[in-house]
């Protein structure tokens, strides 16, 4: 089974957060901090995440719902969030 990331989801799709893989970001300095930032803003293992909105060009950035919050991020950043590989 291939690993799936938040950046793979389309608008309206929902998944559960499994973990974080900031190694996938090309820049090491960027990646080092990203996991902490994601955690601090409210991403957490086991929570549901749903893509609510997408930008016009390249479907970027995205706005996702976690709990009661709406969080905006780029797909590049979403590529560090590992999600379950279900249908949704």
């Amino acid at each position: 089974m291939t690993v799936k990331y938040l950046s793979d989801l389309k608008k309206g799709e929902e998944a559960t957060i499994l973990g974080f893989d900031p190694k996938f970001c090309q820049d090491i300095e960027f990646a080092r901090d990203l996991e902490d930032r994601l955690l601090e803003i409210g991403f957490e293992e086991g929570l549901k995440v749903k893509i609510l909105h997408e930008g016009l060009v390249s479907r970027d950035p995205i706005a996702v719902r976690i709990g009661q919050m709406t969080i905006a991020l780029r797909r590049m950043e979403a590529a560090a969030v590992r999600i379950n590989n279900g249908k949704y």
Partner: protein
Amino acid sequence: MPGTSHHITAALVGSPNCGKSSLFNSLTGSRQKVANYPGVTVERRSGKYTTADNQTITLLDLPGIYSLKDRTLDERVSRQIITGDHVSENQPDLLICVADSTNLRVHLRLVLELKHLGLPIILALNMHDMAQRDNIKIDPEILSKELGIPVVTTVAVRRGSLDDLKNQLSETLHNLPPKQGALAAPTTRELQQQARGITARAMLSEGTQHNITRQLDKIILHPVFGLIIFFITLFGMFQLVYFWAEAPMNLIEGSFAALQGLISDILPDNWFRSLLNDGIIAGVGSVLIFLPQIMILFTFILILESTGYMARAAFIMDRLMAMVGLNGRAFIPLMSSFACAIPGIMATRTIEHHRDRITTIMIAPLMTCSARIPVYALLIGAVVPNNSIIFGLFGLQGVVLFGLYLVGIVSALIVAAILKMTLTKGVAQPFLMELPKYQLPVLKHFLINLWERAKSFLRRAGTIIFYAAIGLWLLAQYPKKPIGGLEPDIFYSYAGILGRALQYIFAPLGFNWEISIALIPGMAAREVAIGALGTVYALQGNEGQVEQGLRTVIQNTWSLPTAFAFLAWYVFAPQCLATIATVRRETNSWGWATFMTGYLFALAYFAALVVNRATIAFLN
């Protein structure tokens, strides 16, 4: 113990978007002071608060933080103050931790982290009304027991809803526990697990998902409609900034003219009258006249910010800004710069990252500010025929004006891209930001904030611009015309001497000595160059007559390449001392101010040269 508690400082701490500043405004009202922390441009907001039983304390509104890991300048100041590491600020005696009730899990993690510092803490569960609306039920007593600190619920924007917090403050202040030694905090992940556990135990109902924000976002963040709404908002804003500002601007202009007339009547015609009228009133007046535009612009910006729309604007513009290596947040200050670069540069404080902030400051003056409009209008009126083009839909003059705006914007994007590849090079900053819930603005808080902006603008007009006006007046007035001199007075002054010396530098651009001289007083504010040209060409009469006369002079004596080069010069040249002074203050560095001045002059010179040569080639 009234009297002994004067030195007690309580700091408001919380994540961004928790309503901390609203709470601060409600508690301190007009008894607040905004200054900068020494050496940095982070705003220090402090105020006095007196409890019902007459204990007065200092409240400090610290910049929002997500954790004690600081990434931005703002966050570093907060972290240093809370942990007692700040050079000039003492560690507070009490923390009032503000958390968003609708988002308890995330905000509790910060509370747990702060608890390890050993300071007394009161937890304010803010936005209690919204939590109730969304059917979220939290038991403050369970939470208080779990955390071991007092917990109160608050609605920062509603009067009377702060009573619990006020009572708790009095009580805590009476037996203020001593500070304890700080313990090492566990990792973010461990704190988060604890926070999740406590939230689960204290949360009686998790609430329903649907709310107004979700519904509004469906339209406002729609890929197509969202973009349309965004551009209508922008367009409407600029139209109204010009439209509404016209009457108060005329009023200010009229008042200054009346004041000058009054002084002319009272004082004899001597150097002192000239200093007052032509130096101070003309100079300071030429800047103060922008106060209405700046106030109206800030009105819009404050409303867009307090309602939560600004974060959506950042979302919508992020993609475009990403192309030049910035992120969506940098767009907001650039938008302000269309009215005036000064409030725009001040607004860059909201940009998280220092390098991105510097890049944005460096390109802000390229946004066509309102002071350029009188200059553009004069030149375009003089040299561009008033023809209709594209099936008579657009006037050629209007298209040229729009083109000048566009050149500014495109250049700004190019300069930003070059800077990001060189001087401000660095790792891309994550865009990651919370989109806050939509809220109605609160009139009182809005007025407090608007007054703060107006004050800082007026303070500048009273200091740096005042001195600059006197300096430029001296340059333009002395030495006096020798007896028998044939040229206008300004020709013989220091400004004239400087201008005539500069004409050798400006000759390749097609600028004559008259233009070169006018550029010097134009440093006070761009549109002053028009008045100076009037002086140089010895035109008499009121403003309208001078402009009419100038138009004729330009049509008859300036060549087309010269006029176009002058327009090109004005797109880029940093013809405004106030902007340069603001850059120096906001970056806290003469280096960046000098760099900006230098690169803009170089760009202006190069652009004017190219335009001049291209026009000559085209005409032949």
